[in-house]
C-alpha cells in the first residue's frame, strides 16, 4: 500500500544553519499530491506547503520543497533556521482522494 517515510525522528541544529528534512513515498498513483504539515508545541497541525508538479520548487514562509517523481521524494528545506522553526514536521501523501497518509514525523529543535 501507499506509505510515507521520514527517516529522521529528531533533528537538532543551531540557529542560522540550513535545515533539510527527508521525505520519500510509495504510491500506485502516477500523479500524487505531497504535503508538509507543521505542528508547534501544544498546537494543531497546519499546512505548510504542498505540491503536485514534478520538478517544480514550492515555497512558503521561507521553506521550500521540490517533488521529484523519479526518486519519489519531497524533501523540505530552509536555508537558515530560526528558533521559531522548532516544531514537529509531517510529510503527507494523498491517497488518491481518500485521505492523507502521514509519515511518522520529524521533530526539529533549533537552539541559539
Amino acid at each position, binding site marked *: 500500500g501507499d506509505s510515507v517515510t521520514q527517516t529522521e525522528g529528531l533533528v537538532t541544529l543551531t540557529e542560522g544553519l540550513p535545515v533539510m528534512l527527508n521525505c520519500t513515498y510509495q504510491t500506485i498513483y502516477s500523479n500524487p499530491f505531497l504535503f508538509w504539515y507543521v505542528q508547534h508545541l501544544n498546537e*494543531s497541525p497546519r499546512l505548510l506547503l504542498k505540491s503536485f508538479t514534478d520538478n517544480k520548487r514550492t515555497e512558503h514562509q521561507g521553506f521550500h520543497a521540490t517533488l521529484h517523481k523519479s526518486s519519489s521524494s519531497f524533501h523540505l528545506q530552509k536555508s537558515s533556521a530560526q528558533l521559531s522553526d522548532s516544531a514537529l514536521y509531517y510529510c503527507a501523501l494523498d491517497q488518491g*482522494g481518500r485521505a492523507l497518509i502521514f509519515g*511518522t514525523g520529524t521533530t526539529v529543535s533549533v537552539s541559539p
Partner: protein
Amino acid sequence: DMKVTQMPRYLIKRMGENVLLECGQDMSHETMYWYRQDPGLGLQLIYISYDVDSNSEGDIPKGYRVSRKKREHFSLILDSAKTNQTSVYFCASSFTGTFNERLFFGHGTKLSVL
C-alpha cells in the same frame, strides 16, 4: 471564522469506561476525519466521514466507532476504553475530501486511559 473545535481538551478515564470525543466545524465541510497521534507513529487515520451517515474505516478502526448525524458534528466513541487507547486525538475537516485539499485540524483531545 474557519474553525474545528474539539471537546474536551483533556480527559482521564478508567479502563472499561466509555469515552465520547466531540468535534465540530463551522465551514460546512463535507468530509471529516479522526486521527490519533502517538510519538514515533505520527498521525494515523481512524475513521473518515464523507457526509452525514456516510462513514468509512481508516487504517486503525478497531476499538472505535463514529457517529455523524449533522454535517458540522463528528463524534468518536470508544466503547470500553483500553489503556493502549491513551493518545492525542485530532479531528480534521476538508471541503470535499478530494485530493489536493488542505485539512483543517482541531486542537486535539489528550485522552489518558488508566
